[in-house]
């Protein structure tokens, strides 16, 4: 599903965030990206969401080269991807429910289906009883579960998560990972960036270790 060929991303003055990176992720796979700070994990995910374009090389998703997408195609591609941010990116002015329903809403879904979908995913992450709360009144783990619910509300074929457990204690982290395992069990491809090696060991999936923009280890 994801194929990267000799992918490089250069920021100003020859700083390589990614250097000649090649990898393949199969459809339905669950893959960790790990490595020290500055290794290029977030950069890879940004390229995956087509927030940035590679400096060199190709990044293919479902057979489509992300560099060749026209603006409308970028929109439709992004609709098939769910993204979980390390800092959640919840809208503080909107309730939990509105935050989740926001995605189908701004994609023009009918109102009834917005509500039904939002309720379903909130129930799935176990927060249907906090629907009317504001995000800032929730704990970090709860906020992260909302962010995950929002990433799933549109039934994506691919879920990307950048340090989804960065701010959470180990027990909560494992709980969040179980959510991702469940998503994956339903056939969705999942890519999670984390530098928490203990967590990766506990979940026990393929992990690609990056350092200075290159894959240095596969396990």
């Amino acid at each position, binding site marked *: 599903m994801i194929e990267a060929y000799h992918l490089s991303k250069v920021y100003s003055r020859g700083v390589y965030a990614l250097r000649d990176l090649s990898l393949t992720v199969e459809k339905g796979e669950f893959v960790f990206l790990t490595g020290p700070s500055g290794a290029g994990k977030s950069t890879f995910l940004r390229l995956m969401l087509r927030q940035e374009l590679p400096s060199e090389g190709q990044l293919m998703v479902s057979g489509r080269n992300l560099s060749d997408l026209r603006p409308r195609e970028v929109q*439709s591609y992004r609709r098939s991807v769910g*993204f979980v941010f390390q800092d959640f*990116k919840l809208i503080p002015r909107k309730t939990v429910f509105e935050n989740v329903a926001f995605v189908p809403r*701004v*994609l*023009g879904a*009918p109102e009834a289906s917005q509500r039904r979908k939002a309720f379903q995913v909130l129930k799935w992450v176990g927060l249907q009883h906090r629907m009317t709360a504001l995000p800032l009144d929730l704990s970090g783990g709860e906020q992260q579960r909302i962010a995950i619910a929002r990433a799933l509300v549109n039934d994506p074929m691919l879920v990307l998560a950048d340090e989804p457990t960065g701010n959470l204690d180990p027990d909560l982290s494992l709980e969040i990972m179980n959510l991702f395992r469940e998503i994956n069990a339903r056939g969705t491809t999942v890519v999670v960036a984390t530098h928490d090696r203990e967590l990766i060991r506990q979940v026990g999936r393929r992990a690609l270790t990056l350092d200075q923009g290159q894959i240095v280890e596969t396990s």
Partner: protein
Amino acid sequence: MRALKYFFAEAGASLWHGRRAAALAILTVTVGLFLLGFFLLVNANVDRLVAQWAQAAEMSVYLTDDASAEQRAAVEATLAASPLVRSFEYVSKVDALARFQHDFKDLAGLTNELGENPLPAAFEVRLRSSAGDQAGIDALAASLSKAPGVADVRYDRQWLNRLLLAVALLRGVSLVIITIVGIAAALTVANVVRLAAYARLDEIEIMHLVGSPAAFIRGPFVVEGVLQGGIGALGALLLLWAGYAVATARYGTMLADAIGLDGLAFFSPMMMLLLVVGGMAVGCVGGLVAARGVR
């Protein structure tokens, strides 16, 4: 349809959220359209006035009391032959007196005391309003005043022309001012909408990242601008109407007496609609400018 509902819901919430700044934008639109509307109203009423005056007798050719029938016929022939003359009417001494006594009832006694009719016979001439040929009219007046049997020629065409020139000048200046105010209103709307957009940059970022169509991202800003413009226009109309009502109540009869205008005119419903649509258009431009700035 669903998109429109979304645009209006978002724009409404955003307007309410930034209601102080929005009030400022609405106010600038109101001021701009008030000026425009005021100018249009004054213009329409001046036009009516000018038309009315143009209708009135424009040239009077007074005859001496001892003018012969041939002399009178010669004057009449000159008038009939002139291309500048639209129509003319002979008012005899008797008719003139009757008119005078009718128009100035208080003074009716005066003419009786005089024992004779002091008013001259005259031709009242209407010039073609399209005839802008001042020199030709001057020449006609000059030749008529030298004709035997003619006591005097009076015409107020010159004065009317000066008035028309002044009105045209006023029109030009007003248009410039209104254009400037219109641009200022659009810019204010743009800035206020952009300000409101900054308060929701997080939402806009998420919209981009989940693949929301560009129209969905920009629509609310455009609608917000349109709403500000529309509300501003309604405010301007309301102010104009209030001003019109006060002016009519206070000065209506005075105006009628002084310059012979029977009542002031307000906008036709079509014109009001145009003004509101104009305000919305200004707001729409502002919203579009703001939406283009949002990335």
